[in-house]
C-alpha cells in the first residue's frame, strides 16, 4: 500500500493511497478536506487513475485532463494531486 498526505500551504489536505502492481495503479483512493465541484468528480478521477502506469507524465496527463473538463478544485491546485500521488509512490507502508 502506497500512502501519502500532502498539506497544501494555505489550503487543504490531500491523502492518497493506492496499490502498485507491475507499476500499475489500482485501488486509488483520494481523500481530504478539499472541495471539488461537482463532488461526484472524485470517483471519476479515481477511476481514471486506476489501471494507469505510475509514471509522473501519465499521472499529470490524467489529472490535467480531468480538471480541464471543468471540475473546480478549492483548497488545492491540480498539480497538488500529482505531487501527492508521486509522494505516495515513493513511500510504502505495507
Amino acid at each position, binding site marked *: 500500500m502506497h500512502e501519502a498526505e500532502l498539506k497544501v500551504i494555505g489550503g487543504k489536505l490531500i491523502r492518497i493511497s493506492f496499490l502498485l502492481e507491475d507499476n500499475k495503479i489500482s485501488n486509488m483512493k483520494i481523500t481530504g478536506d478539499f472541495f*471539488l465541484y461537482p463532488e461526484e468528480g472524485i470517483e471519476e478521477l479515481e477511476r481514471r487513475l486506476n489501471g494507469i502506469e505510475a509514471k509522473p507524465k501519465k499521472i499529470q496527463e490524467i489529472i490535467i485532463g480531468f480538471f480541464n473538463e471543468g471540475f473546480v478544485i478549492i483548497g488545492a491546485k491540480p498539480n497538488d494531486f500529482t505531487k501527492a500521488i508521486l509522494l505516495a509512490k515513493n513511500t510504502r507502508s505495507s
Partner: protein
Amino acid sequence: MRIVNKKEKNQKDNWRLLGLEVNNASMNMAIDEAIMHCYAKGEVQNTIRFYRWHPSAVSIGYFQSVEEEVNIDFCRKMQIDIIRRITGGGAVYHDYNGEITYSLIVDEKNQIIPADILKSYEVICKGLVAGLRDLGVEAKFSPINDIVIKGKKISGNAQTRRYGVLLQHGTVLIDSNISKMFNVLRISNEKISDKIIKNIEDRVTNLRRVLHRKIEFEEVFFALKSGFEKSLQISLKEDDLTDNERQLAFQLEKKFLDKSWIFRR
C-alpha cells in the same frame, strides 16, 4: 440596538428563517438536502436555517474517509453519531451543548452570490461576522472557509452547488468541549505542520471563551440571524418546513443512515 424603519424593510429581499431546531445528525443533513430539492422545484423561497445536533455527532466531508478522520470506537462508546455530508471540507464535531449550525440555501444565480466560489464563501461568512459583531465579538473571515478571532477558528463552513442551488452550511462554536472534540477527531500531523503553535487548544476558540460569559443558544441564533439580515441586506421571516420538505427529509434520512454512504470512501 435596532432601529426599525418601515421604509427600509420594503426594499429588502424576503427570505425564510427556520430555526432554532434540534434534530439528530441524519435528519439535519436530510433536511438540508430536502430544502435544496424543494427549492430547485420552486416550492420554497431562499432559506436560512439554524440548528443543533442531538445526540452530539461528527460529520465528515464528502471526500473524507471515516477511518481516517474519526475515532470510531470513542464515538461508539459515547454514542456520538457519525455521518457523511454532501459537502466537502473537513470533519466537524457537533456538540449539542457547544455549537450552533446554520445552513443557507439560495439560487446559485442570486445577485448576492458571486459566481466565484471563493468569493461566495466570503460573502456568506460575512453574515456570520456581522452577527458576531452584534454579540460584541470582532471576528474575521479567513479564506478559504473559516472565521477566526485573533487567529483562532470559531467557525468552519462548507458549500455545495447542485442543480443550480447553493447550499452553504457551517458551525459557530459557542461553548465547546475542546478536549472531547479532539478525542472524537483524529488530527493529522500534516494538517498542523505549517502552524507555529502545535497546541491544539490554541487553534480554536468559542464564544463563551471570547465573551467571558455564559451565552444562550437563542441569543447567538438571534444575533446571527440579524447578522445575515444586515450583511446580505435581506429580511428573514420565521416559518416552518413545508410538508413536502418534511416528507422528503424522511426519505433522504435513510441515505445518511446507510452504512454504504457513510463508509463509501
